[in-house]
Every structure is written in C-alpha cells, then in structure tokens.
C-alpha cells in the first residue's frame, strides 16, 4: 500500500477572473522507503505539488491519502496535526528561528505535540546526533555555516519521526561541495529506511535519486524509476535524463 497517493489531483487558483491550473489532474503514488525527486523548471507546479503532498495546502479537485488518511477534506487543525506528526520539511533557506539555539530549533515541532520536556531534549539530541550536529546544540543559527544550518533543519524535520520528509531545494543556498554533503546525508537517511522527496529544478541533483518525477505545466511529464529500469547506481553522474527516455510514461 502506497504511503502517499494522489488521484486526479488539480489545484486551481483564480487570478483576475481567470482560472490558473497550477496542478492539472496529477495521479501519483509514493511507497514507504522511497527516495524520489520532483523536478521541473520554476512555474511548473512542482512547488504546488509539494505543498499539497506536504499538507500545507489542499487540492481543489481529486483525492489524496497519506498513511491511510484522507487529506483533501481535512480541516486546518487536522492538517496542522498531520504536518506535525507525519511530515518533515526542509527548506531552501533553512528557516531556523534566529532567537532560538540549535537544540531549541530542533525541539520546535515537539512543542506542538505534547512531548514531555525531558523526552523532548533526548529526542532532539538524538536527531542532532543523526546529522552530526550534537556538538553545536547551544549555538545560535547565526553562528553556523550554511551546511550546518541545513543539517539542523534536517534534524528538526526528523525529530517527530515523520512518515515522509520533503526537502524544497535543500542545496539551493549552499555551495556545490556543501550541497553534495547534504545530498549524501539525505542518501544515508534514505538508506536507513526513511521516505524522502527532494524538490529541485536541477537535473543533476534529481539524478541523485532512484526515482524522478518531472513536472511541466502542472502535469507529470516524465517518471523515471531506476528500480524498474534495473540499475542500482546512485552516483550523480551515473544517470542522466537522456538515459531515462525509455521509461517515459504518458498520462
């Protein structure tokens, strides 16, 4: 049973009396443990897709289930609860709260889930250890490098043991070297069994994941699944888009 499944999902915005279909009839499944990337140029609708997948927004049409729960009709309160319990977010600009230290930033999601103070600290330290930031727990975000900030943000995304982690251009504000380290971290986390979805416009980053979904004009243009294609290599140069043409799917 897929962890996330979208069925004929559309997102329509009304702008100046005109309907704009940011997402147009998208059907998609994500299985537990998958490491996928959603790729597309800006304005393609990939951010909208991520917002709907991440329960930050609800679809106008179509249905969506996450971990067996119907999401499309959820109230805002229920959505907040789902985001808190089942979803982790990593943002391009890290979005750490500057007034809190690293530990407090990681504890933030647990503030909204009724975890006791002691357990909060333990779980936050565990999450920081996972991303190798436990020795910086008392630092302020401003005192950290970009890569360290992003690792803190990843710890925050993992701390409530979510079913799926969404990362929106996680390397966009980092230099190539640091970005690659972050990607390696995601790869490691995925190897440990976590479900991760990267959103990016960069094909080279997308090439890092076994499964890639390309969005154009609100529709899914290309799906590549290396597991189906039978290749197991995950080097960023091992697979380019041209190699994947054989698995093009039509909607």
């Amino acid at each position, binding site marked *: 049973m897929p962890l996330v499944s979208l069925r004929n999902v559309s997102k329509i915005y009304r702008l100046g009396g005109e309907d704009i279909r940011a997402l147009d009839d998208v059907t998609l499944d994500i299985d537990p443990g998958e490491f996928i990337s959603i790729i597309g140029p800006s304005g393609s609708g990939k951010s909208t897709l991520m*917002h709907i997948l991440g329960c930050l927004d609800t679809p106008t049409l179509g249905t969506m289930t996450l971990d067996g729960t119907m999401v499309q009709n959820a109230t805002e*309160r229920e959505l907040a*609860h789902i985001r808190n*319990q089942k979803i982790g977010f990593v*943002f391009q600009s890290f979005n750490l709260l500057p007034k809190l230290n690293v530990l407090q930033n990681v504890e*933030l999601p647990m503030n*909204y889930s*009724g975890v006791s103070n002691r357990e909060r600290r333990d779980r936050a330290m565990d999450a920081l250890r996972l991303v190798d930031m436990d020795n910086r727990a008392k630092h302020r975000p401003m005192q950290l490098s970009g890569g360290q900030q992003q690792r803190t943000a990843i710890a925050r995304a993992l701390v*409530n043991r979510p079913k799926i982690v969404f990362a929106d251009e996680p390397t966009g504000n980092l230099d190539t070297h640091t970005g690659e380290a972050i990607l390696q971290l995601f790869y490691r986390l995925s190897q440990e069994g976590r479900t991760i979805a990267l959103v990016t416009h960069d094909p080279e980053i997308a090439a890092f994941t076994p499964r890639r979904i390309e969005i154009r004009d609100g529709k899914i243009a290309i799906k590549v699944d290396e597991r189906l294609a039978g290749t197991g290599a995950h080097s960023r140069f091992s697979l380019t888009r041209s190699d994947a043409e054989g698995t093009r799917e039509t909607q």
Partner: protein
Amino acid sequence: MNFLNTISIGFKEIWANKFRSMLTMLGIILGVGSLVAQSALVKGLENGMKEALVAVGGLEKVYITAQAIPAWQRHRAEQAVGNTMRDIRALQQSAPLVHLVVPEMRLPEAVVTSGSKAITPWHFVGTWPGSLDLNQHVVEYGRIFNDVDEEMARNVCVIGTDIRDALFGDPDEIGREVNPVGEFININNQRFRIIGMFRHYESELDRKTREQAASRGPAPETGGPSRRGVAGGAKRSRSGSGGGMGLAFEWKNKTIYIPLNTMWLRFRAGASTNNEPDPHLTAIYFKVNDLEHMNDALQQVKNVMSQTHNGIEDFAFNTQENYSESINTAVRNARLSGTIIAAISLLVGGVGIMNIMLASITERVREIGVRKAVGATFWDVFIQILVESVVIAVIGGLAGLLASKGLVNLLSILSPAGNSPVITWEAMIVAFGFSVAVGVLAGIFPGLKAARLHPIQALRYE
C-alpha cells in the same frame, strides 16, 4: 501546546526585544501608575472632607430649630410653645432611639473684650457639658463647667483658641503658648472668668502646612519683620486654605461656651416679657443611636415633640446628610474625572501594545510560517501572540503599581496642599486588573492576524 512553555516563549520574545518591550510597557506603567495615584489623591481628599464632617459632630448629630408654623396650623399659632426645656426633658424620657439630648441657647453678635482688644465669636453658646461630646470638643487647658456652675448660673466660660489668639496673643506671633485659664473677659459688658480652653482644631492639611512653615525654621537673620512675615503666612494659610471644609475648623476655634442657665439669666432677661427670661432654646441637639435607623429615630423624636408642642409643627430637623451628600458628590466627581483620564492613558498604553505586537508579527511572518509548517495550529499561534501581549501588560502593570507608590510620594512632596494621598488595595487590584484586560484586548487583533496567516504565504514572505 504546553501553557507554561507558551508563557516562557512569551518572556523570551520580550527579553529578546528588551528596549522595545520596555518602551511599550511604559505606556502601561504610566497608565496603571496614574490610575492608582489619582485614586489615592481622591481618597486623601475624601478623608479630609470626612475629617471635617466628624469635626462638626458626624452624621449622627441632628438638631432641631424653630420653624415658621405651617399654613394649615396658623390659626392655632397662639398655642405654639416653641422649643423649650420641656422638650429636652420629654426627649430624655421618651425617646430611647436618641441620646445626648442637649439644649443650646445662642446669642448672635456678642462682643467679647479684654483690655483694648475685641472679637465677635462665631458661636457664643449657653449649653450643657454634653455639648462637648456632641461637637467633638476637647478641653486642653482648665475644665468644662460643671453642675454647680450650671445651677448657680456662674459667669464662667470655656473659649476656643481663636478667641484666645485675638485677646491674649497668637502663639505664632508672640512665640509662646498663652494659657488664658483664670483670666477675665467681658462678654457684652458682663464679666466672665475663663475656666477652660479648647484644643486648637485644624485639618490634616492645615497641620501639615503649619508644620512645614515651622520646619522652614527661623528665617535667616534679617531681623524681626521678615520673621513676622513667615509666621503671618503660616497663620493665613491656617485659617484660609482648605476651602469650605477648612471653615468648619475655623468656626470651631471661634467658640465660647457658657452654662445654659448663665446664658438664660444674663442675656435672655432683656428679651423677656413679664420680667421672665425668654425660655426658647435656639436649638435642641441630640445624637441618633444607630445611623441605620435614622428615620425611625427622627419619627420618634417627632412624635414626642408633637406631644409637647400641642401638635403644632413649629420645629424642623437639621441633619448633616446634605453635607455628607455634598462630600459624596464631590468625591464621585473627582474620582470619575480622574478615572476617565487615567483609563484613557491606560487605553493609550494598550494601543501601544497592539501597535508593537502588529509590528512584531509583521517582522515574524516567516517564523509564524515555520511554526505552522511544523504543526502549530491557529490557536497555538493566537495564544502565543496573546500571551506575549498579556505578559507585557502584566509586567507593565506590576511596575506601574510600584511606580504609583513613587508617584504618590512625589506628589505629596511637591504639593503638600492636598490631604495626604492614600493608596488603597482596591485601587491597586482594579488598576492591575485593567492592565491585564488591556493586554488581552490589545493581543486579540494581532493574535488573530498572525493565526490567520497561511503557512505557504508566510514561508514565502521576505
């Protein structure tokens, strides 16, 4: 979300913007401070007025004076007896709801002389010693007249300090206290011996003013006249300031009491018919036992008096209720206007909080977006903003209570010309409660605004 945790987040947020929060609190501090201070001032004013009311005998004191016979009884005018000692005896025996029934005979425009000095007392009264109790008089030197003085109609008197000051010298001017007991004075050319003198009566305010003038001490050695000037100033303020309420004390100091019989025999004889002294009393004083049953007592007195007056209503009751009513009105007006001004300043403080909370959430749109993305609900965000607003108001309110203490001290130093302000618990609780309410109100709108933010838009906000 854990409530204590929310409060601690609120404190952190305020601590992170120390200067800004302090400026915001200043509005609340001043609002609460002025609310408490003004209520303390009004309380002081009220105390001063009540003090004057007590000095004239308090609310329990009632007196009966003569009144023109009402029109429907005019045909029986010959049977009207007026207020006499018969009424006194009847009331003493038949009106258990009142006590301290005291007759008074007054002689207006009496001239009192001693050597070349003369004064006209405000009250020249022939009465019983019970009058002391009734009018809150205290004998400082000598004694009050006794039954023998009364029985023998002796020419003895007890005087107030203003009489002494006029005839024998003011201690402020001559620099020493004169004890006039044993001296003789002439009242309308009758020789009287002074057997006692009352205490000097003054309001709290006058006492303070006088003490301040005294503590300013001997003026620098510039000679006699300037010294006199200082003392004269003190005296003027003693009798002049305090408005209507101060007059109550001045009248009291300008009193001469003599035995009732003396008054009757020495001064009323001239006004007699058939060589009998005029038996009419100027007033009949009594005290009501229980203020709660004032009306019952007055009705009882009226019944007794109807009996002795052949049913003719040629007498009227005079109570201090009008006085007390005017005090209440004055206090209510002062309190109302003061409270309105202070409440406005508290409200302005609240607007300050709201303003700063709006600025703060605009600054923190991204933070709110992040909090929502990781699972904060509408209420979590709303409560967080509300708590911050209330925490500012609570700290401001507490600081305001402290400030009010200082403000009141400052006011009583700057202007001794007010009865000492009294800070009451009620005022503090009300002011603090108001500041909390203002904090809640000021937090609602910014809180709603923050809580309504859509997470996606909030996260995109630059």
